[in-house]
């Protein structure tokens, strides 16, 4: 078994792990605020639930990158090359780096922004539409990182 495959697998695993951790934290933070908001006003449940779920997308992006990476290195279909070169493995790992770093940070920050938006909706229910925009802006950077990782993985795959 070559070190190349190990590094490629590490990239996929870290993409899923760090994004999942970030999303868990972000959704957790927003969930506390959502619960607090609903305690005195249960009518807000559907609105604050959407705001709570926003930081959950980063975990999905991480999972997506992990799937693509595993599929490109052949670990999903059973056609993995046990002699993958070290440089190819490192390139796969490098391709996953944007997701590994950006997704957890954006998930946590999006969770915090969701907390502020939940406070906004609690005070004025009619601001729900506007309150969605603020945490959604944080999503932009998660999507950019996802795009770069996808392009990079397919690029490495074409080279290999």
């Amino acid at each position: 078994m070559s070190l190349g495959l190990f590094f490629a697998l590490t990239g996929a695993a870290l993409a899923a792990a760090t994004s999942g951790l970030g999303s868990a934290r972000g959704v957790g933070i927003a969930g506390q605020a959502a619960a607090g908001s609903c305690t005195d006003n249960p009518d807000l449940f559907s609105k604050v639930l959407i705001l709570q779920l926003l930081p959950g997308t980063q975990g999905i992006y991480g999972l997506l990158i992990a799937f693509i990476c595993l599929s490109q290195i052949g670990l999903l279909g059973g056609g993995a090359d046990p002699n993958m070169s070290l440089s190819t493995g490192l390139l796969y790992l490098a391709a996953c780096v944007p997701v590994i770093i950006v997704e957890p940070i954006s998930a946590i920050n999006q969770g915090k922004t969701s907390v502020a938006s939940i406070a906004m909706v609690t005070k004025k229910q009619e601001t729900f539409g506007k309150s969605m925009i603020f945490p959604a802006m944080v999503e932009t950077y998660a999507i950019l990182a996802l795009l770069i990782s996808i392009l990079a993985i397919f690029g490495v795959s074409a080279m290999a």
Partner: protein
Amino acid sequence: MAEQYIYAVARVRSRELSLLNESVIAQLCAASGEEECLRILSEKGWGNPDLPSEEMFREEEKKTWAFIRELVPDNMQIFDVFRLEDDYHNLKAAVKEACIDGDHPGIFAEGGTLDPEMLKRALAESDYEALPKDMREVAREAKETLLQTRDGQLCDAVIDRAALEAVRIAGEASGVPLLRDYGELICATGDIKTAVRSAKCGKERQFLMKALAPCSSLDVELLADAASSGTEAVMAYLDHTVYADAADELKKSLAAFERWCDNRMIETIRPEIHNPFGIGPVAAYILARENEIKTVRIILAAKRNDMPEDVLRERVRSMYV
């Protein structure tokens, strides 16, 4: 740390919706009498019109603390800073009861952190070890002062100074910026009140140095110098401090100054209304409720005494929401 209170802050945000705002206060001021005020308050969830108003205020205070206990059951001691004044008031009462024969029901406040019975017993038996460490020396000094000089004012000054110092120290020790600012403001405004009253009574510098509590926004030595020279000198000194606005209010009356102090407190806590993290918004809610109760008490007293609406409006406090 700040994320520890997210649930609490979200619940506070919900409760802030039921705080009395400026328009409700205007409605109360314009009400035809106390009965109408009680009816409006009842619609806002305050007591009921059949309840005596003092009972209603007690109930509202209890409601606030029950809510806060529910939110932060493991960290209630952080809010002791708001209850220390009641502790020192009770200490004052216990010292006087120990030095004056007889039982005097109703002189103890309910909101403190210490059991009034424990204070009574400790002072009656001069068992200062039973008191919290920070209170022992001041309790001993106050009781000895009262027994030796029979000067109740000096005894009060000793305890009031200790109370102000305790609030400031507790605020600083909390590590919460809002509570630190609260402690500093309470201490500084307490010193200003003492200085003005002492100046009016012609008290000497020696008394002032015993009565004024040190704080970072005022130089107590300069304030004591000014107060021993007269009220004009106090106002001249305040003009050079961050409390320059207070001097204008003091020129009007002590009641105007009290109002300024309460409004300044509301200005200090107002940024917390937009803060979704930390203990600050919870602390601000407690102060907002206290301010609300105080304002309603002023309005009801004014209505009971047929005070004209325009005079009443000058006395009501700014609201948090």
